[in-house]
């Protein structure tokens, strides 16, 4: 499903190249639930942007669903993103002027697939996350947990193979964290590949595999890594 080989990424600061990812190798199989942990500034979000095709590699190769992402044009990456990836962000990233319904509908607007029953699809997902009754409300009227449930519904609407979640419970309290994680568990059980980036061990423990990002490379989980977290 996901294969990163010697992935490199650097940023420019004061005219100098600052490496963030120094050669990341990652392989995630279809239907896996993987958590990536790391300290603040370790490059977790950069890695997620690369995996989500929001950013491009400065070196290495990236294959997603059998397609060489590193060779793709912007347009093709956008299409791949729309079809194969669902995002769940820490700050929800819902469009404030759109209703709950239209926020969930948004990925279908850009979809190349022919959806015969878009309305039903959106409403079905809103039912699943328990927010069908709030479909006309603007995100500003929702609680943090509700916003994240809307974001999850939006991530699932195009039936993507991969869900990328960046600190999905970072802005939630304990109770709503549990409900959101439970929702992700359900999505995983339905067959989706889930890759969660978090620094919260309780969130990471829900995954089948935990990876640790340090000094720009990924390490398999170990007690030493756990200690560092």
């Amino acid at each position, binding site marked *: 499903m996901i294969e990163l080989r010697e992935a490199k990424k650097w940023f420019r600061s004061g005219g100098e190249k600052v490496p963030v990812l120094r050669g990341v190798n990652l392989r995630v199989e279809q239907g896996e639930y993987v958590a990536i942990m790391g300290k603040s500034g370790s490059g977790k979000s950069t890695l997620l*942007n690369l995996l*989500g095709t*929001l*950013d491009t590699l400065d070196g290495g190769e990236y294959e997603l669903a059998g397609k060489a992402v590193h060779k793709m044009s*912007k*347009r093709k990456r*956008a*299409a791949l*993103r*729309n*079809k194969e990836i669902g*995002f769940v*962000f820490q700050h929800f*990233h*819902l*469009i*404030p*002027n*759109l209703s709950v319904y*239209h926020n969930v509908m*948004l*990925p279908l*607007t*850009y*979809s190349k697939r022919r959806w015969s029953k878009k309305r039903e699809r959106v409403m079905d997902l809103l039912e699943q996350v328990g927010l069908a009754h709030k479909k006309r409300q603007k995100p500003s009227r929702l609680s943090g947990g509700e916003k994240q449930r809307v974001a999850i519904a*939006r991530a699932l609407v*195009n039936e993507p193979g991969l869900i990328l979640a960046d600190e999905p419970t970072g802005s939630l309290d304990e109770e709503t964290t549990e409900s959101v994680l439970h929702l992700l568990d359900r999505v995983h059980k339905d067959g989706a590949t889930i890759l969660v980036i978090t620094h919260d061990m309780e969130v990471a423990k829900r995954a089948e595999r935990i990876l640790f990002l340090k000094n720009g490379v990924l390490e398999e989980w170990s007690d030493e890594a756990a200690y560092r977290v």
Partner: protein
Amino acid sequence: MKLLTGFKLAWFGLWSNRFRVLFAMMGVVIGMFAVIVLSAIAIGVKDTMMKQMGGLGAEQILVIPGRVLDTTSGQKDLLSGLTSVPSTLTYEDAKAVEEVENVRSVTPQLETVSFVQWGEGEGTQRLQAAVVGSTDQYARVQHAELAEGRFFTKEEQEKKAKVIVLGSNIHDGLLGKEQVPEESRDGGTPEAEPKPWWQRLLGTVTGQASAEEKAESLVGKDVMIGETSYRVIGVLAPNATLGSSTDNNVVMPIETALVQTDMKNLTKMVVEAESTAVIDQVDVDVFSAIKENHQEIDFSVVKQDQMLEALDRVTSILQVMLAGITLTALVISGTGIMNVMVMSVRERTREIGIRKALGATTFEVMVQFFFETVLLCLLGGVIGLGLGYAFVEVWNANVSIFSLVLPMWAVKLALYSSVVVGTLFGIYPALKAARMNPSKALRFE
């Protein structure tokens, strides 16, 4: 993504930000309103003047005092080549012109200013009026209609009858209609509803304040001009308009005017040829006929087409001015829109990031923001057009000094302009939005 979807997204984007859109649109609305109203005024003025001059008729020739100099191209320069000299045209000249072959009619006019008086004792009304001496053809030539009574006949003209036809303002003024308060009116007619302030104001501007409010008439009554008494036989309908109005005139037969007043020289003479086919020959012959009575050429013979040509040059200045205003309005409103859209793109950076994260391509984001600007301008154009149209309608319903004319080309121009403005000034914000890096846009605070 189909263009229709782009349009839907743009519409949705506008609707979601409707309050900001409303303010952003104001520039276009005001710009388009100004373009529409100014177009209507410019074309209205042109049409009114064209009608007045064109009303002369293609087979008519105007003889006026003074010499109209020729331009370098040999054409009469009616705009700047008219020399100002006292009139030496006389009624004898008019008689001479009547003898010219292929001349159907001659309508000489002489004018002076005098006091007109009616009533006795404290109720006496005394007004200054333009006293015009002319023939029975005057009303036809001036396009003046009678409100009541009749115009004088050729027989009355030849008999030097002391009969006059009053302009509407003079008639109303002599009756003191404007001074008479509503309460002091006779009879039991129900009081008319008071007019709103703007109608009263417009009424004042057009001089029609209370023309219909009085039933009394001076037809059949005698009024004094100087020391002489004249019988009022008719009243002209109001024809307040640009340039020449008969509202403040008192018209009497020219033969009477020559005897009863000290007027001797004509202010103008309208000569009518048998047909347009002979107009050029009549033009030459009229000139020759008058020249025989004059030692020098101190008069001019002007055909309708020459006047229209001069007028066309005047109105072309209006058109250039209009084009300038339109261009200025477009640039100002376009710059305003672009400013707002650039601000909007900046404010919606995160939204753009979200859209891109969800699969929107560079082109799709560009189309959305581009159509937003075009729709914004088109909507502003339509509203401005609607307001302009309403203004023209209200003006035409209440103001008779001249009509505003809103031709279809002006409507199309306004709509096309608003689309052009949206297109030109929408490109930059759209490109700015489209080129955003999604990962950076998502981090935007």
